[in-house]
């Protein structure tokens, strides 16, 4: 018997109770102002929100962000947003992204309860860019702010190979005497650019 058969047989030999799966249909929390809640939640984890009145205003809004000032290498994967000077699709090896200063990536939706943005980084040639960059900017349609994680999972189906990640704020650690330090291994800063009048990528 191989390990799989051994393990499954060992489990099936037991007869624990087999309760049914509960329904997830409950009145989960909703906020009077999901945008404001998202901004507050993101701020509490060290991120920040900036707003663009339209997609056309976005380049100016992002260009003004502090990390952009000294940025030498910028990757932008948002179609129609000419802010990058390094085209991700032309990078052969993700190791070459080690010196990326700013990455600007689209997020599909945001979650008010915890300041998280769902990023389908698996669609990018190199998902690593979201983690290896020094500063991350996520571009999100303002109309796509959900209240809670249950609503988030109602939006998501996983039927094919894919990689997605909820990103909430910049990377951080409190592993040294519980002192919060922003910027552990991933991005040192996280800005969410909320764009009005845009339905996303």
């Amino acid at each position, binding site marked *: 018997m191989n*390990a*799989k058969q*051994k*393990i*499954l047989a*060992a*489990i099936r*030999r*037991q007869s*624990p*109770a*087999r*309760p*049914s*799966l*509960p329904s*997830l249909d*409950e009145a989960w*929390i909703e906020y009077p102002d999901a945008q404001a809640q998202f901004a507050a*939640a993101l701020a*509490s*984890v060290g991120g920040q929100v900036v707003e663009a009145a339209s997609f056309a205003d976005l380049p100016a809004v992002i260009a003004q962000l502090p990390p952009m000032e000294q940025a030498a290498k910028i990757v932008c994967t948002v179609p129609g947003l000419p802010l990058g000077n390094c085209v991700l699709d032309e990078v052969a090896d*993700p*190791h070459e992204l*080690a010196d990326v200063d700013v990455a600007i990536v689209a997020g599909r939706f945001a979650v008010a*309860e*915890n*300041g*998280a943005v769902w990023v389908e980084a698996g669609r990018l040639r*190199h*998902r*690593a860019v979201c983690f*290896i960059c020094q500063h991350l900017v996520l571009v999100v349609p303002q109309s796509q702010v959900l209240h*809670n*994680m*249950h609503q*988030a*999972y109602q939006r998501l*189906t*996983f039927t094919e*190979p*894919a990689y*997605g*990640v*909820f*990103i*909430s*704020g910049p*990377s951080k*650690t*409190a*592993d*040294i*005497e519980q*002192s919060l*330090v922003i*910027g*552990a*291994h*991933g991005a040192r800063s996280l800005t969410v650019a909320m764009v009005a009048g845009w339905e996303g990528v």
Partner: protein
Amino acid sequence: MSNELIVTDHAKAAAEFVRDDARAHWHDQALWFVRVKRDRMAQSLPEWETLRAKAAEIKAHTVGHLADYLEQFERQATALGAKVHWAADAAEHNRIVLDILQRHGVRQVAKSKSMLTEECHLNPFLERHGITVVDTDLGEWIVQLRGEPPSHIVLPAIHIKKEEVGELFHRKLGTEAGASDPKYLTEAARYKLRQVFLESQAGITGVNFAIAETGGLVVCTNEGNADLGVSLPKLHIACMGIEKLIPRAADLGVFLRLLARSATGQPITTYSSHFHGPAPGGELHIVLVDNGRSSILGNDDYRRSLHCIRCGACMNTCPVYRRSGGHSYGATVPGPIGSILNPARDPGRYATLPYACSLCASCTDVCPVKINLHEQLLTWRRDLAAAGKLSWSKRAAMKVTAAVFARPGLYRLAGKVARFCLRHMPRVLLYGPWNPWGRQRELPQAPRRSFREQYARRPKP
């Protein structure tokens, strides 16, 4: 220094820990603060108790159908292009991981936090076979550099002061002598570990949740080290205990709302990565590990301990854990849940753990999946006593006391004698090394007459 802990006498280790009063209070306060943050998060969600109840039901259902869900998970994950391996025990897990690494010619691995790999002692096994393993979670890296095990499953270096980290980094990384600013030290770690991510040929992660319905894996970190570790090299090995399964992707709504709030008092970890199949051009290997879990599943009393999502909230709330430190448990998983899981593995070695507890039940009240921790700890005491693991003196004391209590006349006499001694014996006889109560406490002031004597003398209404 060896990574193996030999301390299994919790009381002795705890007494040692408490001896450094200032440090013990510092440790206690640090963990209490995490508990307070957790409370704030819980109070901010009116549906908190509903979430806990749902989580408990989902886990009970999953464990009740575990074999079916494991098979479903394997089918789905394989269909996505992942390779699923099964390991009956720790040794098999280690061999599987080694084999995968060797076949790919891996010389160095970046590993993100995985209590399962700690449980299997993967690191020393790989090192013995000439593969370098770097633990990339900052707290894990710190204890790895110190050559000691983590003392908490979520906050591995909670027992270490920043000056000690500074001194460690000075020796190992060449940071400035005497520097202890966490920002400076973290920056040094960022720089050094970045090299590791860029130079490693493989990444190993744990698994917070595996989704049976979709064949996906969820890994949660604050630092981004899991993603960096597996998005640069082409090889990702994910190691998980078989109890990490959940049935549906929608169930993540419940668990991701509970996990970080319970663990660190934040609404969600910075990164919650959902892996469905390997990256294009890459390989994803998933190792499913039993290592005693299927036998716990067979035990009505302890089955619910398999619901554990390894959040560490029970450790943060445990007044004993806070004042004795994770190392005093001598096991990979310490604290209340550890005191239930470890005796199952080795009752002789871990017999003192269920007694490292005042039965306050705070652990049960914080557990996001509503494991009846304090009840299982009590049940362990019953099982250990029945298996003859109680010390002779404890057994004798209980036999004598029970015999006295079974005989009212003898009980009354014993009470009279005790009160007489308390009132008349000189201090030097009452308080000595034979009286552990009296080391730091006064004994009760004994009355001349017991309640029953006084009640009997009362005029009847």
